[in-house]
């Protein structure tokens, strides 16, 4: 097992504890300080979106270079805003994976260096656990809970039977929702990142072009969006061949209707099947209004409480990493300094063991 457990005296004491968390898995450099696992003292996020925009997407080597440029500055801001001294940091948490390996490495090496320099435990943290536990920064989670994780890189339905125990019920077999949004946005000639543009265009459209829904096998909670993306491109080509101007609005609406229908219906089916007491919506695509509204309506009808974190906690940020790391802190499940950044990282295996 990849944990060390010498329990620092601070774990079970009454005094407040502080986790310093770092997230560098993609194109945001972020550091945060949490008090007692749930109170955000700071959550500094440096987005590289302007840098990557001119390339039409995230360039991994550039993302890694940017992380090195800003890492200590972001750490300094996070501790200054939190108003704590480094000697008050009780543990250092960092995104161990999944993510872009070169980007992860910067955060991981910084976190290890901090753990050595401050002589405190290191907590390697799962990025998706972070997205899910962002909800614990908003409200108390009731178990079993069902998490719908939708972001640029991930689309997963996760069951939490008890605190910190993750079971993946379904995941995308090809593109993540956010990826499909960005690809469709490009076809609709929106600049990167185009997801929010598609959401807006869809909500303004009066009509929808009916597009296919990939339900897969009847019992499956998995997703597939590559066919839907191809259908959008085919529809654009078809109308151009006929000399017509494709209706981007109706296409955006048709695309969004299809995505939201499949995602929400499967999430609700899973919630029902596993007796979930709460629905957690998380990940950057949780900002999508169409998705929020539809899920809220379905949860309302089913009498299932829905938690959606504010946007600043939905997109990649270090506070959510601290919130997930708190699961391990309270159980004194720490990570050795020889930890390896994991571009592909199992959420289920990251579950707590106590």
């Amino acid at each position: 097992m990849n944990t060390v457990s010498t329990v620092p005296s601070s774990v079970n004491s009454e005094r407040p504890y502080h986790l310093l968390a770092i997230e560098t898995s993609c194109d945001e450099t972020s550091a945060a300080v949490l008090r007692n696992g749930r109170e955000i003292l700071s959550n500094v996020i440096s987005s590289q979106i302007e840098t990557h925009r001119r390339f039409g997407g995230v360039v991994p080597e550039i993302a890694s270079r940017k992380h090195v440029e800003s890492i200590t500055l972001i750490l300094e801001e996070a501790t200054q805003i939190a108003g704590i001294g480094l000697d008050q940091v009780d543990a250092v948490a960092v995104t161990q994976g999944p993510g872009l390996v070169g980007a992860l490495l910067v955060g991981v090496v910084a976190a290890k260096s901090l753990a050595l320099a401050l002589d405190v435990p290191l907590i390697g943290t799962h990025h998706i656990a972070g997205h899910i536990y962002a909800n614990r920064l908003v409200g108390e989670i009731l178990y079993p809970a069902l998490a719908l994780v939708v972001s640029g890189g991930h689309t997963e339905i996760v069951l939490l039977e008890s605190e910190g125990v993750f079971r993946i019920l379904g995941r995308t077999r090809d593109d993540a929702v956010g990826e499909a949004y960005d690809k469709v946005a490009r076809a609709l000639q929106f600049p990167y990142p185009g997801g929010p543009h598609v959401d807006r265009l869809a909500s303004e459209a009066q009509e929808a072009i009916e597009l296919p829904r990939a339900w897969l096998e009847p019992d499956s909670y998995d997703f597939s969006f590559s066919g839907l993306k191809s259908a959008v491109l085919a529809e654009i080509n078809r109308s151009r061949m006929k000399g017509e101007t494709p209706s981007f609005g109706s296409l955006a609406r048709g695309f969004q209707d299809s995505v939201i229908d499949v995602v929400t219906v499967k999430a609700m089916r899973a919630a029902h099947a596993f007796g979930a007491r709460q629905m957690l919506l998380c990940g950057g695509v949780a900002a999508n209004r169409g998705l929020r509204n539809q899920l809220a309506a379905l949860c309302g009808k089913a009498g299932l409480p829905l938690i959606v974190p504010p946007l600043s906690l939905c997109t990649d940020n270090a506070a959510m990493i601290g919130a997930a790391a708190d699961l391990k802190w309270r159980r004194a499940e720490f990570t050795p300094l020889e930890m390896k950044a994991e571009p592909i990282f199992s959420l289920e295996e990251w579950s707590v063991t106590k």
Partner: protein
Amino acid sequence: MMTELSVQPPSSPVTVLAFDTSTASLAAAIVRDGMVVASSQSFTERNHSVHIVAELKRLLAECGLKPENVDAIAVGQGPGSYTGVRIAVTAGKTLAWTWNKPLIGVSSLEALAIGAWELRIGRHELTTGTVWIVPIMDARRGQVYTSRFAADYTGHWEALDSDGIRIAADWTGILHEQASASDGVSEIWFVGDIALHEQTLGMSDRQDGVPVRMLAFSMEAGAVGKLAWSRYLRGEKDDIHTFVPNYTQLTEAEVKLQAAALVRRD
């Protein structure tokens, strides 16, 4: 030069924690007043990010050093493997910031060159005149990260070129031509990652040319620490927040974007 107002007594030793991960070698050392106190080198895994911090911890413990006993953090700034250089630079920045110690970056190529040079001096392999020490790190596709230093046995050491990525064959040609044309150059030493480029680098080792030596040599952090120590004595240090690796070149994506912009301008 010491002044009467100097706060630090001249007898107080300066301890530098030095490391470099720009090459296949994970190199770490403790250097006190320019002397290597402890040093380690490992090649077990290319993934230096796994071992670097644990190795630094081990080395500090081995020397019985606490954070307050370390006076400066010295780090190889590259060039070299992009990912590799980022690992040492990130660790260096974070340790220096957390401990509030000066961060001193040194050229990984210069460390490679001076490390090989000092090893040979130690063995009394003497020649006369000026030797050009040319550090070599493979940069793929016939390219090398390289530079040129002039050294002689009076202790003279001088950088003649800036660190850069160069085509091995072209670079070798230039060096041989210039060495032949100059009076004082007695030998050219190619040091470092030479195995892959031995044929290219030796190609102009003609009867009439300046003699060439090929010295396979892997990075040692003692040299990083010594170079940093001399910068420390000159009162030099780097700004922790803005310190970045010396990649010597833009990313491929940026190069392509610039090329596209040039085409549009035409």
